[in-house]
């Protein structure tokens, strides 16, 4: 276990303990094992204490203990006041090293995982539904191919014993990175290192994370469900990740295209500012957990395999085809031309300065330290600033031409009357738009060019499913 203390004089202790395992290591047929193992540790009892007794400890202390399970990382996070640092660290060690494995905790948490898939994704969050569907398409047949929470069928078949097996095989001492910050950071590191020696020393060889299976043909999945708008996600795998020589160049290009939740991106300007088509459209070269809820990416979702992702927030049905064409036209333009010199400088400067803001909060800082170890970059903000300082507009142009011109792209749509949208896209039907006010001539001219832009997809690859069929 790597243990990294960052003591300071603050009144709080923050701990992040990441096991380098996750849903990519779920055994076949037991998808959801990593999720349930993580949740059983964080939201279930230990051998000595029931979960209610754990809440009795945490609640009056205002302490928070949580777990996130991603493809290759399971992160436990503890934040508490220095008044309770030692006893909270003891509790965390007990929860991770000596779980209670109670059947009633298992049933509760398995039901929660099932409800996440069956209710939340299928019926309550169309945008995340489309995003998860996209990842499922890009990584079909790959260890990343299922939702981190598992599949409905595998969760139903899961037994407590399977979760324990996963824990024993994967939650090993040498498989963990610990970072503690703030008050009593060194003490917490030492305590957790000592207590967690009871974990198995070595993890089994995980499933690994090979490159995404390449596909020659564009694919589309139309998910039918009642909805006022159509949520759209699109993307393709990229080899570039943190540490790659093209990372900074591609990050700069994609930030200019659609920096998360910022109005400066070309996609935001084009779809929302000039045309009012939706609430926003953004682009990514790294997985961003829960983008509808967060302005900043939560660390410790590091992945060896990433995709380029377009996130088009819900669009009125009649305009969905046009909005998609417009977003693709923006992507194509970027891939062909790169960035203008002033846009390049501005974006480069933004990223260099913004990276520092992302690490301001202590817990986020710890998370980034762990991610930096995963990617082998050294301190991420420092590494990124170095890379950005050496970057030229020409580097960006080369990077976009290399990485943003996919042979095939995957698309997921969630909304109502999907059959009609599917047919329109298959027919490459024109998709003219009209506005409620005069628009500048250049906008109308661009619309005329975009409204017939072909999107080629083989009919057999444009599948229609009902939301209720997802995640089986």
């Amino acid at each position, binding site marked *: 276990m790597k243990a990294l203390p960052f003591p300071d004089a*603050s009144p709080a202790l923050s701990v992040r303990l990441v096991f380098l395992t996750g849903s990519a290591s779920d055994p076949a047929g037991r998808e959801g094992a990593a999720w349930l193992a993580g949740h059983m540790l964080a939201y279930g009892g230990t051998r000595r204490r029931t979960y209610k007794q754990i*809440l009795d400890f945490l609640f009056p202390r205002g302490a928070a203990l949580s777990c996130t399970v991603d493809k290759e990382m399971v992160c436990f996070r503890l934040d508490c006041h220095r*008044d309770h640092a030692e006893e909270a660290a003891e509790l965390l060690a007990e929860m991770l090293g000596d779980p209670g494995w109670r059947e009633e905790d298992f049933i509760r948490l398995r039901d929660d995982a099932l409800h996440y898939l069956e209710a939340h994704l299928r019926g309550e969050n169309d945008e995340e539904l489309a995003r998860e569907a996209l990842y499922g398409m890009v990584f079909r047949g790959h260890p990343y191919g299922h939702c981190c929470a598992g599949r409905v069928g595998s969760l139903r078949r899961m037994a407590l014993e399977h979760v324990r097996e996963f824990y024993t095989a994967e939650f090993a001492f040498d498989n963990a990175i610990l970072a503690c910050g703030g008050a009593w950071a060194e003490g917490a590191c030492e305590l957790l290192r000592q207590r967690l020696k009871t974990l198995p020393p070595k993890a089994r060889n995980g499933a690994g994370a090979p490159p995404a299976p390449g596909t020659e043909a564009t694919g589309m999945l139309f998910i039918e469900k009642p909805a006022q708008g159509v949520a759209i996600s699109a993307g393709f795998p990229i080899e570039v990740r943190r540490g790659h020589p093209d990372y900074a160049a591609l990050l700069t290009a994609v930030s200019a295209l659609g920096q998360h939740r910022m109005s400066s991106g070309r996609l935001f300007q084009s779809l*929302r500012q000039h045309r009012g088509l*939706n609430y926003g459209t953004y682009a990514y070269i790294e997985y961003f957990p829960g983008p509808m809820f967060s302005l900043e990416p939560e660390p410790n979702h590091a992945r060896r395999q990433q995709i380029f992702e377009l996130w088009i927030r819900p669009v009125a049905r009649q305009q969905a085809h046009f909005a998609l064409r417009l977003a693709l036209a923006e992507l194509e333009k970027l891939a062909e031309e790169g960035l203008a010199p002033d846009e390049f400088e501005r974006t480069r400067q933004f990223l260099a300065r913004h990276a520092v803001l992302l690490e301001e909060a202590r817990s986020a800082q710890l998370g980034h330290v762990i991610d930096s170890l995963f990617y082998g970059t050294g301190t991420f903000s420092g590494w990124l600033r170095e890379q950005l300082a050496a970057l030229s507009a020409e580097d960006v142009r080369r990077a976009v031409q290399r990485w943003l011109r996919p042979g095939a792209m995957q698309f997921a749509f969630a909304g109502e009357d999907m059959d009609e949208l599917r047919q329109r896209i298959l027919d490459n039907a024109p998709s003219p738009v009209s506005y409620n006010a005069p628009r500048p001539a250049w906008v109308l001219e661009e619309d005329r060019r975009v409204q017939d832009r072909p999107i080629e997809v083989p009919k057999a690859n444009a599948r229609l499913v009902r939301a209720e069929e997802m995640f089986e």
Partner: protein
Amino acid sequence: MAAGKAFPFAYEQHDLSNGLRVIAVPLPWRGVASVYIIVGAGSRNEVEPGRSGFAHFFEHMMFRGTPRFPPERYEAELQRMGAASNAYTDDDRTVYHTTLASEDLEPLLEMEADRFLHLRYSEEDFRTEALAVLGEYMKDSAEPLHRLEEKLRDTAFDVHPYKHTTMGFLRDIERMPEMYDYSLQFFGRYYRPEHTTLLIAGDIRPQEALRLAERHWGSWERGSWQPDVPEEPPQNGLREARIEWRSPTLPYVVVAQKAPAYCDSGPECAALDLISLAGFSEGSELYRRLVIDEQWVEHLWANHVDHVDPYLFIVTARVKQPERLRDVRQAIEDELARFAAEPMPEDRLERVKSHLFYSFVLGLDRSESVAAALAPYIGLRRTPETVNRIFDRYAEASPADLVRVAQRYFTPQTRTVVTLEEVAQ
């Protein structure tokens, strides 16, 4: 519970002669500052018929530029600064916030002053932005909690603007493109220094921050408008509503009670905050019973969100077993009645007070978090001292206070219950 003030940082507070209040909070984190511009106008100010959602819409228009900083230039400047910038609208306030390197504080304050003093947009841009608001409504409409809030407010209130959500009624959002002239009026009424507080928190020198505020915001002209917000008549009977959800979901039940306006000079609001946690949080007996033991419920929580005018105390449960919806409602109503019938043990109340204190203090972990935590309190009383005042009321509250408050507010006559259930398509 630890000793000390809940808001542990020193600050400077100063009113410019035009009425703009400036609050500067120096913080220990190096190199970063957060600027929160808090306008005391939200959906509470949408008093005219057909204007629901307008404060939020106007928040969007504030990003449509000035002659000096057209939107493209404004965006480019923010980008150069590496700033994280956004805004939100609530019932009682609209907040524009930016976090950036503290060395860029002056250019930001200059640019922000420019848009508050000289906003100008075309009718065409106004109409286009109205569609983006419709897009925002469209994304929200896929969430059951959004629909529940919409239905709850509409059912619980008759005349007060809290009857609608911040987004507004859909019928009004659809008519927004026609309201250009009204938008100019709205700006002239509420975007005035006497309604606004400028909060600057971070690696700053307070006197320098006050000087910059004076330099760039000092010429802003005071206004005179005060909204005539209708008073909600007393509720005289149980109200109920049901939502049919056409997609997969788990059923929800919301039990809401009419609650008083924010007040930190007496025990009422503090007592309701304490009850919300004592009764319905992870630290409550009911949570343990419904979520952990019986497993009828996935999530249970209560909100008592401070408001300028009387609003609601709201308990929400996401029910795992649809056939238990009625039982869960009954359990929540019984718990409300229990607060009115018997005093809570002193040690249990102490645990809740301790939770409130520690969780608030733990949240103050960077400039952005400190400013974000202060913004609602400043929206209510225009001073960070509000935090310490309400925490003093928490410390003083006794089990008997909680009983008195529960007896007053948890009556079936002032209750509204909304359920949401999946229906077959």
